[in-house]
């Protein structure tokens, strides 16, 4: 026993990644399930897809849930983020780079080269990964899978099972538990099953919680035509879409802040909160990043308004051009740049490198809209508890939106930021009980105006 430690820090990286036996077994199951899908994708397995689909999904589900269970089981109540800066996966190490590249490549293939996933025509049928999901698609929609079905299924699967892991990790915090159950519900039932069931009744695919402008194609010609062609249901969807943007969103945001959508309902937020949880500390907290964020997200909001106005102009006047702007070209550009490249490729592909909310923070026009409402007219704020902040910075570190929460907390200023999605993690990780997400109407115009930590006697 004569080891001379160079570092005496209790956070030292001497032993952070000791996997338990259960974790080894569950990781093996998960890898095996994934491997089955990959081999099937590349044509290594030619048996009927159902022979491999169900076992691979089962292995993945049990593996993920069991791993998450074991990771946080038998731990004393409290938040466990030990070692995040020492693990390759969560500190932009080699594992993170590899994962980032694989995810990015997957999105590129998904959006622009679905044939490599095995998408076939009606006559030839699917092959590869998409064929593997045919049985599930048959079961729910009544026809063969598309790349979007496969994507939706995997997406839902991940939110559900990593959601279980998240709930288990934060089980002592009811706010986290409730909102994660909500996310899982909206993704599984409203975003995945319901639209698929609608399709099986030959109704247009519709995700009721995907509100314009996040759902940027809502006012596109083909979409409106499709709705108008499907009778009362179509009219209802059209009505609901406009209502949810114009009435529901402002009202709910007035009462609860942006969080009712971004961290309780939305699918993009849902993935960020569950699959993205290990990466939340990677968001950039600098003032420069904040500046870029404001320029970008508001430009995209303007872009989506202009694009939609153009599309509607064309619909009602029959004119393709407004001045020099071609509505078809502009909407294609939006779909390519924002709808696919930004929200998918960068938004999720870069999780392990830039944190889990890159899209929500820099790109999402719905977030921009909600943010403007939150900032100007909402009861929501994060209250800081008098002078209790010790400037430890935990809150800022774990803010996935890159808000420097500490800078507000240490001077006792309530936090009213348009980007805050109300995930509540800052409040959970604060060691001094400084932060509380709350709503109040009677001081709505004075939110964040005073600083409570000035002087010991702050009255």
């Amino acid at each position, binding site marked *: 026993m004569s080891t001379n430690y160079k570092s005496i820090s209790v956070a030292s990286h001497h032993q952070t990644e000791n996997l338990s036996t259960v974790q080894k077994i569950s990781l093996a199951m998960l890898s095996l399930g994934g491997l089955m899908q990959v081999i099937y994708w590349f044509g290594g397995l030619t048996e009927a897809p159902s022979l491999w689909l169900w076992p691979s999904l089962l292995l993945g589900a049990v593996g993920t849930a069991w791993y998450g269970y074991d990771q946080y089981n038998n731990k004393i109540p409290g938040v466990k983020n030990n070692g995040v800066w020492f693990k390759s996966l969560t500190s932009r190490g080699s594992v993170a780079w590899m994962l980032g590249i694989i995810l990015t490549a997957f999105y590129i293939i998904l959006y622009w080269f679905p044939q490599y996933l095995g998408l076939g025509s009606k006559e030839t049928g699917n092959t590869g990964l998409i064929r593997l999901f045919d049985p599930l698609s048959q079961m729910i929609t009544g026809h063969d899978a598309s790349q979007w079905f496969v994507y939706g299924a995997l997406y839902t699967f991940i939110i559900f099972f990593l959601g279980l892991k998240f709930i288990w990790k934060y089980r002592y915090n009811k*706010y986290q538990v409730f909102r994660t159950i909500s996310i899982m519900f909206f993704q599984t039932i409203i975003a995945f099953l319901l639209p698929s069931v609608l399709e099986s009744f030959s109704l247009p695919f519709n995700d009721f919680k995907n509100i314009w402008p996040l759902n940027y194609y809502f006012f596109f010609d083909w979409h409106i035509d499709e709705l108008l062609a499907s009778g009362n249901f179509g009219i209802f969807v059209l009505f609901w879409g406009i209502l949810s943007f114009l009435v529901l969103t402002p009202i709910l945001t007035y009462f609860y802040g942006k969080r009712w959508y971004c961290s309780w309902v939305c699918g993009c937020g849902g993935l960020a909160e569950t699959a993205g949880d290990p990466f939340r500390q990677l968001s950039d907290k600098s003032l420069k990043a904040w500046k870029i964020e404001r320029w970008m997200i508001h430009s995209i909001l303007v872009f989506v308004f202009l694009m939609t106005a153009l599309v509607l102009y064309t619909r009602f006047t029959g004119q393709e051009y407004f001045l020099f702007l071609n509505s078809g070209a502009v909407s294609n550009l939006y779909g390519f740049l924002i709808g696919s490249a930004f929200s998918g490729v960068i938004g999720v592909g870069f999780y392990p490198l830039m944190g889990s909310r890159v899209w929500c923070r820099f790109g999402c026009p719905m977030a921009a809209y909600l943010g403007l409402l939150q900032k100007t007219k909402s009861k929501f704020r994060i209250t800081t508890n008098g002078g209790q902040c010790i400037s430890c910075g935990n809150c800022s570190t774990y803010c996935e939106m890159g808000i420097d929460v500490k800078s507000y907390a240490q001077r006792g200023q309530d936090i009213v930021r348009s980007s805050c999605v109300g995930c509540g993690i800052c409040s959970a990780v604060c060691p001094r009980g400084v932060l509380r997400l709350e709503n*109040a109407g009677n001081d709505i115009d004075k939110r964040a105006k005073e600083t409570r930590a000035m*002087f010991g006697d702050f009255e």
Partner: protein
Amino acid sequence: MLPAEEAQMVSEHILKHGIDLRLESEISEILDDGNGSVSGVVTKSGEHIKCNFVGLTVGVSPNIQFLKESGIEINRGILVDEFLRTNIPDVFAIGDCAEIRKPAVGRKPIEAVWYTGRTMGQFVAHTVCGKPTAYDPGLWFNSAKFFDIEYQVYGEILATRPEQTQTFYWQHPELEKSIRIDFKKDTKQVIGFNLMGIRFRQEVCHHWIKNGTTINEVMQNLALANFDPEFYEEYEEQIVNTYNKEYGEQVKHQGKRKLSLVNRLLSKI
């Protein structure tokens, strides 16, 4: 430092985290491994404990010997007046190293805690920026985290309670959560709050203490002070029932964990 019940809770928690806590032991010797590193310690009872690192934490004392010849007046700490000035013009001292010549009633000349240091920093900043402001420490408060147990204190909570102080203590039947409210025996006015594993609002506690609010009134509105995240278990009823039983009172809890009500209490609207 902590009252007995809370200290007990913290000790048990430390044990749970795998730390072999020996409250009754004292070190008599630190052993050398022959290479200039430590190899173990011997306790007063003669027990030999192997180790390769020893940390000694026996209170804090200002490390100011290097100022001896500087002309700055020192005692245990660097002596400062109510503007945190030393005897030398334009030289100030704040934080752990500062010793206040005439401390406020009930406060120590040296307070080696974070909040004192920060508050002093705010005052001295005003003074050096041309708005001389005398240091006023305000009502005592502090916080800490013992592994996973958060601790907050507002006002005066003494481990050995004076004759004229009464205490009310409630502990969660299973979880590591408790609240303690100390109040004056004669007037029933609250003087301090001690929280383990439960968050309370500083401003509300402060308001109650400053205004000499009685324990009954505090009990009646207890939820206003709660600062736990939304949807957390609400145990106010349980606490008030315990209080009623112990003190033969009939207080009915009416508070709600609602910021708008807090704003009203603090008349911030």
